[in-house]
């Protein structure tokens, strides 16, 4: 039993860190502006393609390219905010859901025109190390590490810098923030940018070990929903914890039943938590 449980759990946890980063972006945007970003998946996919292009065309090391991808994600997010979200930020939920969904359609459409829906692969490996019965792939470990670093930086940013505090203030009470002289639109745009940046980073990390298509973000977006609800809507650290929970579930469930039951359990759990504890298991808010 243990000879399968331990490696499965390790695999799941390592992935969980990356899931966490993806969910953190969704969670941040929700926490700051009460918007569920349905363009989250395609942005994850764009992150994957960003790494792919930087790696195959520019010949960059994927981890170096991640910085570029992050920056591009930030800019893209800010752009999306001003084009699609700013106008409906105070409208009913349906408006922002559909506005971000239309961005989803636009990105997928353009992405399909450029990359088609065929799979791509970043042919990159760092080798592996054997620890007892467990074989750790360095790309996975590096991704988990990167996730931890990104989370750390995000927290430093949110709690130690003026801009970060502005974001928290706007998230907490937008009217009051305006009265204090904080330009809330700009802060919201930046938060949206950071949210999409996190999604792009997550996508980039995933691209270093799994093949992907322009549609591949969808699965990670759905996972992000589950994680965000597990960790508490709007709670970025909760997202990381939620990611680890989901990762270990994905690791452990297959030990006991057919792997194809994993999504059934995930989504039943998801609906159940929304019904019973909509604020999430770990409480909410930035």
């Amino acid at each position, binding site marked *: 039993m243990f000879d399968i449980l331990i490696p499965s759990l390790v695999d799941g946890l390592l992935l969980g860190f990356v899931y966490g980063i993806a969910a953190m972006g969704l969670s941040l945007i929700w926490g700051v502006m009460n918007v569920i970003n349905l363009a989250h998946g395609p942005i994850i996919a764009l992150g994957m393609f960003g790494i792919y292009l930087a790696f195959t065309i520019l010949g960059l090391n994927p981890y170096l390219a991640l910085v570029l991808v992050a920056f591009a994600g930030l800019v893209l997010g800010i752009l999306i905010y001003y084009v699609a979200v700013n106008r409906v930020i105070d409208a009913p939920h349906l408006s922002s859901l559909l506005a971000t969904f239309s961005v989803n359609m636009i990105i997928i459409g353009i992405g399909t025109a450029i990359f088609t829906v065929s799979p791509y692969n970043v042919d990159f490996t760092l080798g592996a190390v054997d620890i007892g019965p467990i074989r750790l792939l360095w790309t996975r470990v590096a991704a988990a590490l990167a996730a931890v670093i990104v989370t750390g930086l995000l927290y430093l940013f949110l709690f130690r810098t003026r801009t970060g*505090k*502005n974001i928290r*203030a706007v998230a*907490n009470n937008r009217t009051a923030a305006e*009265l204090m*002289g*904080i*330009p809330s639109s700009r802060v919201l745009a930046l938060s949206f940018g950071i949210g999409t940046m996190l999604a792009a980073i997550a996508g980039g990390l995933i691209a270093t070990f799994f093949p992907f298509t322009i549609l591949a973000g969808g699965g990670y977006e759905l996972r992000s929903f589950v994680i965000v609800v597990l960790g508490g809507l709007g709670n970025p650290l909760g997202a990381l914890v939620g990611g680890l929970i989901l990762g270990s579930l994905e690791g452990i469930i297959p030990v006991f039943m057919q792997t194809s039951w994993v999504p059934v359990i995930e989504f039943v759990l998801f609906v159940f938590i929304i019904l019973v504890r909509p604020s999430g298991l770990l409480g909410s808010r930035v």
Partner: protein
Amino acid sequence: MTALEIKNLESGYGEVQILWGVDLNLEEGRLTSLVGTNGAGKTTLLRTVMGTLKPWGGSVRLNGKDVSNLPAHRKPDLGLVMVPEGRQLFTSMSVEENLEMGATNARARLKLDDNLERVYELFPRLKERRDQQSGTLSGGEQQMLAVARGLMADPSVIMFDELSLGLAPVLVLNLFQTLRQLKGEGLTMLLVEQNVHMALSVSDYAYVLSEGRVSLEGPAHEVASTESVQKAYLGI
């Protein structure tokens, strides 16, 4: 010298007009109060002056400069600050972070440390609780924090919306003491209050707003002694 000059201001929500041409002047260094019943348009006036509501007509001049159409977040930079009704704290942030957020404009940011010291002097309770999450403070402490946060913006004109709402009388008394002290330091203040008695007792000058218009104005003690005001607001 007029610090804030409001002329013929009109405003409202959607298609409903609330303000029908309000004139109001805040003289520098004076504590002015604005009283009126619920629905008279007091909060609408403050929102329009701050810029969270767009004025339909008329003008707002701050230290001689037309600021009628500036958005709210540009006002603190020019020295105009509002302490909103219901405190509107950043409840998930600490006391000190709230104060820090008050000092968002460039001017205030330079004086952050000095001002912090000053408000801690005014409200020693806040200093004791500087690292506490502001949402967990008591009602009185929260109101202190709201006032202190406003002061952190280093304002030349500060407006208080319903400062006394929901506070025990003794706390109200303390807060108004503080206002007197601030007046002594030369701050221009506008006090919007339902607690008319209290407001008039500390103010220099007063306006009475009813149905979106100024129905009465004058030195506070004169207004307080007007028959209509005594009947309507002071229950005399």
